[in-house]
């Protein structure tokens, strides 16, 4: 230990750290807890106790429809981004050629460029060219912002991969495809799964591209929540947000328990 946590300096650091966590988690706690309040408006801490707002959120067909739209778009975007991204990541780590770094930088650049700018450009582009129909416009846009996440996670895993394993398979007579699917893929699979999960969540949570490009009449869940929040402060909007937070928490917990379990087994 370099700094004693009990020294004044250590205490200040720990205090700021605790403050950070309170700050990070407070607004999330609010959307989960506030809808339990019995008042007709949202209050935190809640007054009284009721399940009626959560019940109202679950039985509201608008939210259910939006949830299904979001799940469908996130699933399609994540799978497409995963296949395209892994192929590119494999080539980026496998071959060295002129402009490789530039290509990698371009592939990663949607991470930092404003999605709003992307959304304006894509809306103009789609209306002028008439390319793609229905929800495919939003899926195409989400693929662009998902690929960087797939690359970010899979590039380091593929770089660390011991290439002599693949060469051994090739020497023993495996085709390049067989070597990839039988040797490379099983080793780098955790990275690929993590990248795809991240891509799914990115698409599922995204609101700006969805505001511009979602099919009219079929908004995604974040867009539905965004519009509802702008209109008013209904406790049922908080309840659906709270359910979303709880579901996300469960998925994260399950994912980490599973990977911890797998590490222990190996």
């Amino acid at each position, binding site marked *: 230990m370099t700094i004693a946590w009990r020294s004044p300096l250590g205490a200040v650091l720990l205090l700021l750290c605790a403050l950070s966590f309170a700050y*990070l988690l407070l607004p999330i706690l609010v*959307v989960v807890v506030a809808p339990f309040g019995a008042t007709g408006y949202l209050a935190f801490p809640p007054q009284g106790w009721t399940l009626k707002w959560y019940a109202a959120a679950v039985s509201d067909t608008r939210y259910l429809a939006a949830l299904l739209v979001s799940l469908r778009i996130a699933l399609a975007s994540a799978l497409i981004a995963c296949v395209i991204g892994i192929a590119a990541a494999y*080539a980026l780590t496998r071959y060295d050629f002129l402009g490789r770094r530039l*290509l990698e930088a371009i592939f990663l650049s949607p991470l930092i460029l404003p999605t709003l*700018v992307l959304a304006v450009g894509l809306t103009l582009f789609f209306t002028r060219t008439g390319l793609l129909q229905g929800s495919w416009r939003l899926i195409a846009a989400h693929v662009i912002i998902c690929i960087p996440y797939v690359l970010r996670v899979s590039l380091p895993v593929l770089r660390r991969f011991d290439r002599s394993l693949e060469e051994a398979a090739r020497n023993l007579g495996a085709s390049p495809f067989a070597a990839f699917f039988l040797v490379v893929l099983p080793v780098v699979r955790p990275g690929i799964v993590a990248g795809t999960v991240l891509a799914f969540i990115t698409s599922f949570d995204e609101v700006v591209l969805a505001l511009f490009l979602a099919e009219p009449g079929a908004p995604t869940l974040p867009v539905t929540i965004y519009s509802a929040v702008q209109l008013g402060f209904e406790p049922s909007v908080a309840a659906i947000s709270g359910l979303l937070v709880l579901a996300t928490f469960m998925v994260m917990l399950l994912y980490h328990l599973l990977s911890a379990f797998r590490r222990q087994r190996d």
Partner: protein
Amino acid sequence: MPILLFAPCVLVYAIFFIWPQASLLAISASSKSGLSFDQYARFFGDGYYWEILGRTLGMGIAVTAITLVLGLPTAYVLARSQSRWASLLLLLTTFPLLVSAVVRSFGWMVLFFRDGLVSRVLLMLGLIDRPVQTMYTMTGVIIALAQVLLPLMVLTLHGVFKSIDRDLEYAAMSLGARPAVALGLVTLRLARGGIVAGSLLVFSLAISAFATPSLVGGARANVMATAIYEQTVELLDWPFGAALAAILLVVVLGLSLAYGALIEGRGELEAPR
């Protein structure tokens, strides 16, 4: 073989990324008679838009400052703690990133309203003498946005602190440096590159954020992102909206080039082992 592996990715980027962005720039700089910078002249000739640009950059600076003040100690404690809770806490830091910015902003809205928790706590502490409305103010936007972006700062800095050998701090202290001095002269100095990189990341995401300023700030806190939305979706002035978007794009692109240069050069800033 390699070309075939690249082809889908390059194609998708060319059609849905490069082409739309290029035509966005083209639309912003053209009129019926050809090349024209009228839209830009309109932006830079109007004090109202200068104000919006200034407000956006100011918001970026404030958000970056808050995430640094909270992010540095948090990342340091998590990187140096030997408790097994540290990895769990790091996981907890990433959790807010998985929750949509819309939902997190909504949480702040509940806290910010006139009789919300923020106002009541401030009253109780005696800092104010009547209820305040943080909702629909720039202060509110900054507080909410800093929370949205804090996890990214903590994660970036955590990686940087982890890569700095703690023996270096040890050495400085055994040579007589007080802990605070060792932290400042050794750790923070070595982390300099990472701190600048994290700040650039948070700054560029802050100035391009839309959901939080639009929900928490409303019409009072007009920033570049909300102005672009207003011009395009509400006023249907797409050429001017495109020009606003292009200006934001150029600012962020400039910052990210600086960020890229720093990431490339980080090897030199790292401590020799």
